């Protein structure tokens, strides 16, 4: 591989586009239509999540046409006592704007307590994105550390670490996370426990992926050269082994963000994740599944939001995989 890269680039040396590196990879991804759409989804969803985190800006930039009342309804009421609605307006159950009986004041309608659905979906973005990234980050850091050390040292270190990790892997992820959440939270589950649980549960796969790459990277001459120059093992792993083994991990991490969103939404649906009144998509589904016949939009909006987000990460991940795989010609 190194040889072909070298030969390819010798002619274009100094001039023209580089055929390796970050920009090149992103260019490759953009050429793939599905992956490009995935990237747009990720960018938009992340953007929405970031801006929904700023209360004041949310009102002005993203949701200018939505009433203060609705925003108040989306937030925990105790923090905003002035926004408690006047009696009589509660328990409005308004359908989306395009359906009969809907209005553009609430484009996606309201939930059965009269809270604006668009606002809640937008707020839900913040939680879902945070959940996806944080859970994946935990799994990535833990998995890469364990897998790289196991793969680099081999022998009994490898055996001990990987057997431990495989033991975790043998337990169904959902059961593991539910048990973890219940015990660590002391019976009061919250989304943060679910996130940590999902992160820990994804460590095994991350460590297995990077370990298999480290096994071949550690045999490379530049690793031997670093050892021969007296570089410490820790620095060899950090500076030389991990960066060269990272491509498949990166691809898996992108896919895992979507998976984590999905799993945490599922946990919230089951009641082990976000608790009311937090506007989490999964929790909203939990709330609304009893009303599926009378008010189907309660279930449709969060479902669509979850689907689009997860699909976005999956499309982008697939595109990234193709871009990073030297065997696929673009």
């Amino acid at each position: 591989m190194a040889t072909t890269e070298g030969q390819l680039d010798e002619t274009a040396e100094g001039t023209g586009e580089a055929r390796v590196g970050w920009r090149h990879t992103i260019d490759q991804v953009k050429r793939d239509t599905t992956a490009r759409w995935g990237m747009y989804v990720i960018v938009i969803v992340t953007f929405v999540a970031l801006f929904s985190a700023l209360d004041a800006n949310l009102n002005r930039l993203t949701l200018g046409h939505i009433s203060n009342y609705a925003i108040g309804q989306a937030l925990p009421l105790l923090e905003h006592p002035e926004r408690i609605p006047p009696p009589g307006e509660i328990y409005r159950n308004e359908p989306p704007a395009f359906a009969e009986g809907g209005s553009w004041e609430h484009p996606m309608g309201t939930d059965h307590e009269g809270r604006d659905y668009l606002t809640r979906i937008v707020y839900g973005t913040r939680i879902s994105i945070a959940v996806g990234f944080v859970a994946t980050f935990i799994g990535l850091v833990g998995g890469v550390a364990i897998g790289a050390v196991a793969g680099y040292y081999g022998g009994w270190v490898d055996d001990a670490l990987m057997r431990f990790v495989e033991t975790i892997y043998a337990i169904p992820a959902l059961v593991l996370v539910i048990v973890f959440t219940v015990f660590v939270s002391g019976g009061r589950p919250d989304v943060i426990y679910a996130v940590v649980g999902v992160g820990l549960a994804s460590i095994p796969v991350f460590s297995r992926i990077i370990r298999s790459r480290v096994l071949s990277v550690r045999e490379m001459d530049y690793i031997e050269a670093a050892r021969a120059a007296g570089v410490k093992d820790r620095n060899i792993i950090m500076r030389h082994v991990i960066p060269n083994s990272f491509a498949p991990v990166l691809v898996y991490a992108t896919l895992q963000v979507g998976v984590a969103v999905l799993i945490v939404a599922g946990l919230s649906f089951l009641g082990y994740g976000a608790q009311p009144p937090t506007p989490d998509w999964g929790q909203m589904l939990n709330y609304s599944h009893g009303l599926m016949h009378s008010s189907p939009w309660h279930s449709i909006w969060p479902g669509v939001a979850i689907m689009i987000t997860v699909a976005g990460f999956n499309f982008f991940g697939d595109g990234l995989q193709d871009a990073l795989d030297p065997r696929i010609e673009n």
Partner: protein
Amino acid sequence: MSVPGETILTVEDLKTYFYTEGGVVQAVDGISFDVRAGEIVGVVGESGAGKSVATTSILRLLDDAGEIVSGEITYRDTTIVGFEEAEEGGELVPRDDMLTKSEMRKEIRGNEIAIIFQDPMESLNPVYKVGSQIREFIELNRDLEGEDAKEEAIEMLREVGIPEPENRYDDYPHQFSGGMRQRVLIAMALGCRPSLIIADEPTTALDVTVEGQILDLVDDLRDEYGTSFIWVTHDMGVVAEICDRVNVMYLGQIVEQGPVDDIFHDTQHPYTESLLASIPRPDKTVEDLNPIAGVMPQAMNPPRGCRFHTRCPDAREACRDIEPRFVDVGEAPSHRAACLKHDDVGYWDSVPIENESRDGVVADEEPPAGGQETEAGR
């Protein structure tokens, strides 16, 4: 720097074995040689002779399966490898004055003994700029940091003949050609200011023009910095060009050693003769080429007696049973060879045997006891 001519590295009766599933591979089986300050010592032999294992043993960089089982390696006054008999059982155990792993890393690797690997395409980390890799090694092994280390790295690039070193500092390895990368590797090794550089077939992957340039460069650098080299190669032509003294290895043992002129003009071992006869030359066609018959036997189950007797054109009955001693031969004082011809043990009275050098088949050698070719030869 060291006094020219002073012995800086001594290897005595080094044995490195690999413990594989198929059995014990005696990759290096009792070799002795030394290196003096400012000289280039060649280690030459076919693939699988144990050359690379011998040199990696010096830095104690063996794989998990490999182990130095006995022998002494002394670098100046420090003991890199040393053994003593245990009080109980008489087994060989490492001596107390042998450097620990972390002492090896801090005191020897890089700053005293550096190594250049065979494949310049794979010896540079593809994700870092060439300059920062040289700089990493310089910062690690010398009292230079930050901008000073960077300047030194650029200076090293200039020293090894890379044009526009300031600009090339920020290039990635894939932007260099093979010969240029080999220069970078030399700069990396040299940047650590070691007294000894082990070059493990560094020009094998290069074409002859570039090879010639690299050999000239090494010769100049040796004169300038007084660095010693151990030059591992299978190419007698390279040996002739730059080496001062030569060790010829066959199947884990040194069969002949001496000054380069004597090895070439006063050859005393049939294996060395065969190596010399197999050098391709412009005045010979392929049909005229005279390769060494057969392949090297497995180091897991080496032939009894003289290890070369299965392929030696001069083999006689005595060679099957008697292991040749390493004796002084020829004119030069330090010229030694391990061949029964030079020993009074009845070689000349016994009859020649049939072997691979005569009819291309193994005469009566037992088939190797299972197991595939292992990593022993690299």
